[in-house]
C-alpha cells in the first residue's frame, strides 16, 4: 500500500515542450502556431518584462501604488492568455495584471488600478474580465459560476482564473474546482506555482508532491506544466479550453514558475527567505531567453525586433502614466454614486452632504 502516493504522483509529471536551451523536446505536442503568432507571443512577453521593470521603477518613484512583480512569469501569464479568445472571461488574482492588459484593459487604467482609482477597474465595453482579486481564492469560486453560466447559455467560451501556490491551501480553491467539476462548467483553473507565498516556501503549504494532483480531489483533469516554457503553457491552456467548450469539464493547470522580484513592492525583502543561488538557477530557465533561442534558430527573431518592442513598451508606458496623471481625481460623491442602482435614504442624505462639501 505504500506505493499509492507514488502512483498518483507519477500521473502528474511535468509537461515540457521547450527545454532551457530552446530545443523542442516534445514534438508530438507542438502547438499549431503560425510564424506571426510565435513572434506576437514573443513580443508580448518582452513587452511584459519591460512593463515589470518600469512598474517597479515607477513604484519606487511614488508614481505607482500597489504592485506585484511579474518578471519570470511571462510564459505562465502571457502564453496561457495567448490561448484564449476575446469572449473568454478572465478572473485574475492581484499579480495577473498583464493578462488583463492583453485582454483589453488599457495600460493607463492598469496604472490607475495600482494607484487606487476606480476608473482602473472599469473594464471597457466588451472586455470580459474582473479587476484583480485581492482575496486569495475568491476568484476560484466565482470562476465556477461564470463557467456554469457559460454552459447554461451554450457559449463557446471559458472562464479562466489564476491563483498562486499559497492559494491552493484556501477552502475556496477546493470549493471552486469541485463545484466546476460537478457542473462540468467551462473553466480553466491555473495555479502559478512560483515556489513562494510571500516568504513561505511551497513545501510549507502542503505535503502533496505536486499541486496539479489536487485536481484529483475534484475528480477533474490536472496537469503540471513547465511554467517557464511558453509553448507548453500555451498547449496546455489551449487543450483545456477545447475540452471545456466541448462540455468535458474544467481543468487544473499548475505552472512551475518563479518570480525574480519581491512578493509585492510594499516592503517585502526576498533576501530574507531566498538565496541568490536559487535566483540565478531560475534565471537560467528564463522563458524569454529560451523562447528567443527557439525563434532565432527558426530565423524568426532579431535583436532589432526585440529592441523595437522594448522602445514601444517604454513609449506606451510613458504615455499611459501621463494619461493616468491627467485623469480626474475621485470624489466621495463618485463613491456614493457607485454603491447601488438606486440610492437608499442614508446615501441620498450623504450625497447631499458631500455635494455641498465638494462645491465649496
Amino acid at each position: 500500500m505504500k506505493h499509492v502516493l507514488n502512483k498518483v504522483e507519477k500521473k502528474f509529471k511535468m509537461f515540457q515542450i521547450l527545454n532551457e536551451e530552446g530545443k523542442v523536446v516534445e514534438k508530438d505536442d507542438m502547438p499549431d502556431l503560425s510564424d506571426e503568432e510565435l513572434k506576437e507571443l514573443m513580443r508580448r512577453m518582452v513587452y511584459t518584462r519591460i512593463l515589470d521593470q518600469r512598474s517597479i521603477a515607477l513604484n519606487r518613484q511614488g508614481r505607482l501604488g500597489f504592485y506585484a512583480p511579474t518578471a519570470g512569469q511571462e510564459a505562465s501569464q502571457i502564453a496561457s492568455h495567448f490561448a484564449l479568445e476575446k469572449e473568454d472571461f478572465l478572473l485574475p488574482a492581484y499579480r495577473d495584471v498583464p493578462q488583463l492588459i492583453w485582454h483589453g484593459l488599457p495600460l493607463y487604467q492598469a496604472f490607475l488600478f495600482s494607484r487606487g482609482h476606480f476608473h482602473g477597474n472599469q473594464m471597457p465595453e466588451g472586455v470580459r474580465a474582473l479587476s484583480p482579486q485581492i482575496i486569495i481564492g475568491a476568484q476560484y469560486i466565482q470562476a465556477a459560476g461564470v463557467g456554469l453560466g457559460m454552459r447554461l447559455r451554450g457559449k463557446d467560451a471559458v472562464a479562466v482564473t489564476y491563483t498562486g501556490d499559497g492559494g491552493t491551501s484556501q477552502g475556496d480553491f477546493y470549493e471552486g474546482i469541485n463545484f466546476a467539476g460537478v457542473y462540468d462548467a467551462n473553466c480553466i483553473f491555473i495555479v502559478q506555482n512560483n515556489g513562494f507565498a510571500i516568504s513561505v516556501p511551497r513545501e510549507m503549504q502542503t505535503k502533496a508532491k505536486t499541486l496539479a494532483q489536487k485536481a484529483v480531489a475534484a475528480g477533474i483533469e490536472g496537469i503540471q506544466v513547465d511554467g517557464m516554457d511558453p509553448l507548453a503553457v500555451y498547449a496546455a491552456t489551449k487543450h483545456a479550453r477545447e475540452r471545456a467548450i466541448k462540455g468535458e469539464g474544467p481543468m487544473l493547470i499548475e505552472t512551475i514558475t518563479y518570480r525574480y522580484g519581491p512578493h509585492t513592492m510594499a516592503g517585502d525583502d526576498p533576501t530574507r527567505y531566498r538565496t541568490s543561488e536559487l535566483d540565478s538557477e531560475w534565471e537560467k530557465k528564463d522563458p524569454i531567453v529560451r523562447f528567443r533561442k527557439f525563434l532565432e534558430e527558426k530565423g524568426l527573431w532579431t535583436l532589432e525586433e526585440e529592441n523595437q518592442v522594448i522602445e514601444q513598451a517604454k513609449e506606451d508606458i510613458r504615455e499611459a502614466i501621463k494619461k493616468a496623471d491627467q485623469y480626474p481625481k475621485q470624489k466621495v460623491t463618485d463613491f456614493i454614486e457607485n454603491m447601488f442602482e438606486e440610492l437608499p435614504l442614508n446615501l441620498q442624505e450623504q450625497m447631499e452632504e458631500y455635494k455641498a462639501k465638494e462645491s465649496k
Partner: protein
Amino acid sequence: MAQMTMIQAITDALRIELKNDENVLVFGEDVGKNGGVFRATDGLQAEFGEQRVFDTPLAESAINGLAIGLALEGFRPVPEIQFFGFVYETMDSINGQMARMRFRSGNTEHAPITIRSPFGGGVNTPELHADSLEGLIAQQPGVKVVIPSTPYDAKGLLISSIRDNDPVVFLEHMKLYRSFREEVPEGEYTIELGKADVKRKGKDVTIIAYGAMVHSALKAAEQLEKDRINAEVIDLRTVSPIDYETIVESVKKTNRAIVVQEAQRQAGVAANVVAEIQERAILHLEAPVMRVTAPDTIYPFAEAEHLWLPDDKDIIDKVKYVLNY
C-alpha cells in the same frame, strides 16, 4: 386572494419570478428535487427544470461564489443558505465580494443576487440554526437586509428583492413559516425595499420591531390597550437601510419609543434605530429610547429558549418603564 402561510407566499413569489424572468436561477443545498428543507422551493424544479432550480454541493462559500459568477453572465441568482448560522462560511462572498461588485467595478458590473436564508428561535433547533445575525450584514455597505414578518410582506418583499439589481439578504424567520395564514393576493405585486410599515396605529408610544418580534409587539400592544395605553407598532421590514422617516414621524407623535429585537443586545440593529431617533428627534422625546433584546450570551441550548428569547411581557414592562419615566 388566497389564504397562505409565509412559506407558501415565499414559494409563490419564487414561482412568479421564475416564470417572469428566465434569468432567475434558484439553487442551494437540497432545494431541487427535495423542494428545500422547509419546502420553500417545493415543486419548482418539476415545473421549471433542473437548469433553473438545482442542488449544489455542500459548501456555502461556493454557493455564493457561484451566484456572483452567474450574475456576471447575466443571470439573476436566488441562492439559499440552509440556515443563516452557516453564513460564517460565506461572509467573504457576501460582504467581501457581492456587496462591492458595483462599487469596485466603477458601476460597470453589478450583482442582482437575493440570498434567502431561514433563522430565528422558538422552534428548538440544534446549535447555530436560530442565531439572529442580521446585524453582521446590516453593517456592510452595498447589501440590503430584508426581514418579513407576514405572508403578505414576504411575497411582495421577495419579488422586490429578486428584481433589485443589487444584492439583498432575505431572512425568513422559521417560527413564522407556518404559524399563521393571511390573505395574500394572487399574481405579482411588490413592496418597496427600505420602507417600514405601521402595523398598528397608536398615539402613546412607538414600538419598533422586526421579524418574530413584530408579533410579540402586537400581542403586547393588545394587552397594553387594556391599561389604556395606545401603542403604535412599526415593522421595519428592511433592517438595512433603516426607514428612519417613518420612525421619526411616529416618534414625533408619540414622544416615546422602544426598539425590540430577538438578537442579543450587542447584536441586531436596535442600536442603529436608537441612534437615528436621538439624532433626528431628541427634542420630541419624553423618555430615553429603550431596547428589548436577548441577553449577551451565545444563543441558548434548545431547552432554555423560552427563558432567553424576548417576549411580549418584556415589551410590556419596557413600555411601562418609558411611560413612567
